[in-house]
């Protein structure tokens, strides 16, 4: 027995599983906290208090800190992931909701819902670089992996605004369905996928031509169409599959990126909002705003493994060290 245990321990230490332990960070809009969950054991490790109404979160390039849009504080808090304390704040403009980090990790792009601006923040100098005027109620933020483009969506104007990152100017707009929420580039930077919450669709936009190449629609048997509200989008690193959170439908759609067909709907908690992948892309985590939990999906078998409570109104989710 003892030998067996020693042998097992040896296997655990040698296996890459042990080495790749990671954490899942979930912002809880109502509890004003970030819940830290162990990615392997799925146990809540710590609940970290932050400022009022934390929503969008992003990991720093070096993986050592977490940028948190504390919407009602009108700034961004930078959480040190070693000490799990708020280290400093960044200026953001009023009511920051969603943010995206540029590929170099130096500039943070923040949507300010209240004043129709996108604010560019230098995280090293901790200053605002520029404010870019966009449509009414800016929301979704997507930076292309090649660093050339920022796509911002505006909820009321129903547009995806293409911002050239070398000049910080809006160079084009693409009309999408009602209430666009999230913009997500494919890994090759050739397409950007935009979800429309009220429209119930996801528009696939060709970046070079800046026009829609496909509009994905969803149908779940026995589910009213109004309940299908696409929000969070994540595309796998190999670009083969997209996962789309469908809000009050309590489902995540699994979409083949070649055919744009929905392969499967995964049942998760109520009002599923945002998604994050594990570093090895074996698991996916979803924030479920109404049922106050996070569902864990086995990405290979496309099966929901577990749902764990993570504080009230979970909103953003990010995987980090």
């Amino acid at each position, binding site marked *: 027995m003892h030998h067996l245990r020693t042998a097992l321990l040896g296997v655990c230490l040698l296996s890459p599983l042990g080495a790749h332990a990671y954490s899942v960070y979930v912002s809880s809009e109502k509890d004003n906290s970030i819940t830290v969950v162990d990615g392997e054991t799925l146990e809540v490790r710590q609940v970290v208090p932050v400022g009022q109404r934390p929503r969008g979160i992003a990991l720093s390039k070096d993986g050592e800190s977490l940028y948190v849009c504390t919407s009602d504080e009108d700034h961004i808090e930078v959480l040190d992931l070693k000490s799990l304390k708020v280290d400093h704040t960044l200026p953001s403009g009023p009511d920051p909701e969603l943010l995206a980090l540029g590929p170099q990790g130096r500039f943070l792009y923040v949507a300010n819902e209240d004043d129709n601006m996108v604010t560019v923040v230098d995280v090293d100098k901790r200053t605002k670089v520029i404010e870019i005027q966009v449509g009414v109620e800016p929301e979704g933020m997507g930076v292309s992996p090649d660093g050339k483009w920022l796509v911002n969506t505006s909820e009321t104007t129903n547009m995806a605004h293409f911002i050239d990152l070398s000049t910080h100017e809006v160079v084009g707009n693409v009309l999408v369905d009602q209430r666009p929420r999230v913009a997500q580039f494919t890994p090759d930077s050739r397409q950007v996928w935009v979800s429309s919450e009220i429209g119930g669709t996801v528009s696939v936009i060709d970046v070079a031509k800046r026009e829609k190449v496909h509009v994905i629609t969803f149908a779940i*048997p*026995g*589910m009213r169409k109004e309940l299908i509200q696409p929000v969070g989008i994540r595309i796998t690193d190999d670009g083969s599959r997209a996962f789309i959170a469908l809000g009050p439908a*309590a489902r995540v759609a699994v979409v083949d990126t070649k055919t744009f067909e929905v392969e499967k709907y995964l*049942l*998760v*908690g*109520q009002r599923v909002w945002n998604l994050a992948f594990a570093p090895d892309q074996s698991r996916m985590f979803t924030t479920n705003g109404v*049922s106050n*939990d996070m*569902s*864990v999906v086995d990405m290979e078998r496309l099966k*929901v*493994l*577990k*749902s764990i409570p993570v504080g009230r109104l979970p909103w953003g989710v990010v995987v980090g060290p």
Partner: protein
Amino acid sequence: MSARAYLRCLLGILVREALRFLHQRERFFGALVRPLVWLFIFAAGFRSILGVSIIPPYETYILYEEYIVPGLVAMILLFSGMQSSLSMVYDREMGSMRLLMISPFPRWYLLFCKLIAGALVAILQVYLFLAIAWFWEVRPPPIGYLLALPALLLASLMLGALGLFLSSVIRQLENFAGIMNFVIFPMFFASSALYPLWRIRDSSLLLYEICRFNPFTWAVELIRFALYARVDWLSLAGVALALAVFLGAALLGYDPGRGMLKRRPGG
């Protein structure tokens, strides 16, 4: 008598039960149609009714189909238990029961063999049903299918013992239909087979308490937990206790000295 003789007796009864099942294939498949109708039609209508709360043994949200499968499995066992006791009443009327009872083996052993034989046929039906449910995307963890076996056996024996006891107090086949209505339906509906008990508590506390102490609820929960590789100790204890009580009552009922089977007018 040697253990060998006992074994031969068990085998004899098993073979007889197996033959009956072979001769009445309609009954076997007929018993499958009932839960399948519930699964394919009833569950489809209530698909989105669940998914608002996570209750053990489930670890995440499930569709209604997935929730009722253990309940339907228990339904197969319940109907099968009642039906095998129905056949006991029939046997008694036809006289073949007397033939069995005059064998030199103790009465309790003969009755227990009948129970085991009935249980095995029912469990066969259950696995066939679970196989069909698998294609309907109700897929408990693979190990659950194995771990469910002892739970199925215990629950099946308990429900069979209940049927045995009922058959001992019934004089004629005609009365049996009434008992079916007064036993099967209340037991099935006042249980956690079709809806989680917290839902019932929301509407009636009294009904909730009745459901909680329904042996059929224990059977359903025992099977539900076992299918998801967990043990519900409370239900396990409940099923074991109910088995002991029903079996004891059935033995009393079939004891000629005590008289429920004693010669009665018309009996």
